[in-house]
């Protein structure tokens, strides 16, 4: 067990190290997340009266789109440089590779979310840096990264791969995003976490279901 986690950690460390050398993916995601907020600002004319109603949707759409950018690069980079074959040749179970890549993606997304939240708070004039919102962000991002990593391994091997990932991922992840938006809107309206418990339960249920499905099917996705 411990050696499996060591292997998972080695893959995570490799992805973080590669990212720190170039900082390409993270900076792309960050710029995109800010761009999305700017665009929404002009599209919705976010003012003090309506910002509370629109902010959860704006926030999650920005997170999800930025997440797809990161996910897209996650396996395409591996495939293009021939690193995927190297990874697959390592004497570890395929699920180790899945959890390593998934954790790497999760960390990148959470870093972007963590930087974006205070910026959103300033731009939208809304207190978003709160522990209950942080919990919702972690739960929502976990499920999104979980199924996103599975699909990004799939689309790296298809035609029109950059387009295929969001097409595959968005409908499947939509209920998750919906639950995250509803929960965020609930706590922004002053409800406690207990009052949005049914949305949190849906989030947790989705996280568990998607991580399990991904864990069970990842073998077949990277099989050559």
């Amino acid at each position, binding site marked *: 067990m411990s050696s499996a986690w060591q292997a998972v950690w080695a893959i995570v460390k490799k992805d973080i190290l590669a990212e720190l050398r170039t900082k390409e993916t993270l900076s792309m995601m960050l710029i995109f997340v800010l761009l999305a907020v700017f665009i929404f600002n002009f599209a919705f004319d976010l003012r003090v009266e309506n910002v509370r109603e629109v902010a959860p949707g704006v926030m999650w759409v920005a997170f999800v789109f930025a997440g797809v950018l990161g996910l897209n690069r996650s396996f395409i980079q591996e495939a293009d440089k021939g690193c995927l074959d190297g990874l697959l040749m390592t004497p570890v179970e395929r699920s180790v590779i899945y959890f390593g890549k998934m954790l790497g993606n999760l960390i990148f997304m959470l870093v972007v979310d963590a930087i974006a939240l205070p910026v959103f708070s300033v731009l939208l004039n809304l207190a978003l840096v709160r522990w209950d919102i942080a919990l919702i962000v972690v739960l929502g991002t976990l499920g999104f990264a979980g199924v996103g990593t599975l699909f990004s391994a799939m689309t790296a091997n*298809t*035609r029109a791969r950059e387009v295929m990932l969001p*097409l*595959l991922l968005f*409908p*499947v992840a939509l*209920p998750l995003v*919906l639950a995250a938006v509803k929960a965020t809107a609930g706590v922004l309206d002053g409800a406690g976490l207990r009052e949005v418990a049914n949305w949190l339960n849906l989030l947790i249920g989705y996280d568990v279901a998607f991580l399990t499905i991904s864990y069970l099917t990842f073998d077949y996705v990277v*099989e050559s």
Partner: protein
Amino acid sequence: MERWGVSKLAIVLHGLAGAAILVALYMALVFAPTEATMGHVQRIFYWHVATAWVGFFAFFITLVASIAYLRTGRRRWDIVALSSVEIGLAFAVIMTVTGSLWAKPVWNTWWTWEPRLTTVAIMLLIYATYLLLRRVIEDPGRRARFAAVYGIAGFVSVPITFMAIRWWRTIHPVIFKSEGFDLTPAMLAALIVSVLAYSLLYISLLLLRTQLEFLSDEVAELRESLDE
């Protein structure tokens, strides 16, 4: 030889399904009593629920066939999964259209973003994407594997769609509750006949569609042998 046998079975099944649908039509339009508040428009319910049942069941068959494909790697399971998605999608679209036709006089709108309609829209998108995914992968083995994985992951949307009207407050009617049905015996009889008739149609369509795919495999093989 074997192929002809299956085709014969398909013809018999189609005949049976056709006859059953005629009976179901009679039951829905004449036999079932007119609903007190909604009037005749309620009769679309017998198609709506029957096609919904077939759609959901077809996606369930895709889930089962996808798991079976990943376990065995046999092409026939991949064919069943694909065929069931195509048929299920057609039935799910009929369900959506009949629901919409009913909603216009009863809810005074074709469409509203309430939980059941939203989850149905997501489900339709997922299975449409399933068909798209198959088109962008050239390698047949990989296509089958990826489609099977998506068929399994996408199925999560089906129970959510089914439970949407039970979990959340919604304006969509709930007919089947744990306490029993909200129907008179004659209505229930008409509904059961409709469900059976369209299930029969599903089975005969599935048979034909899988047969078609086997044939196109055969054609591809023949063409390859000609090229050599």
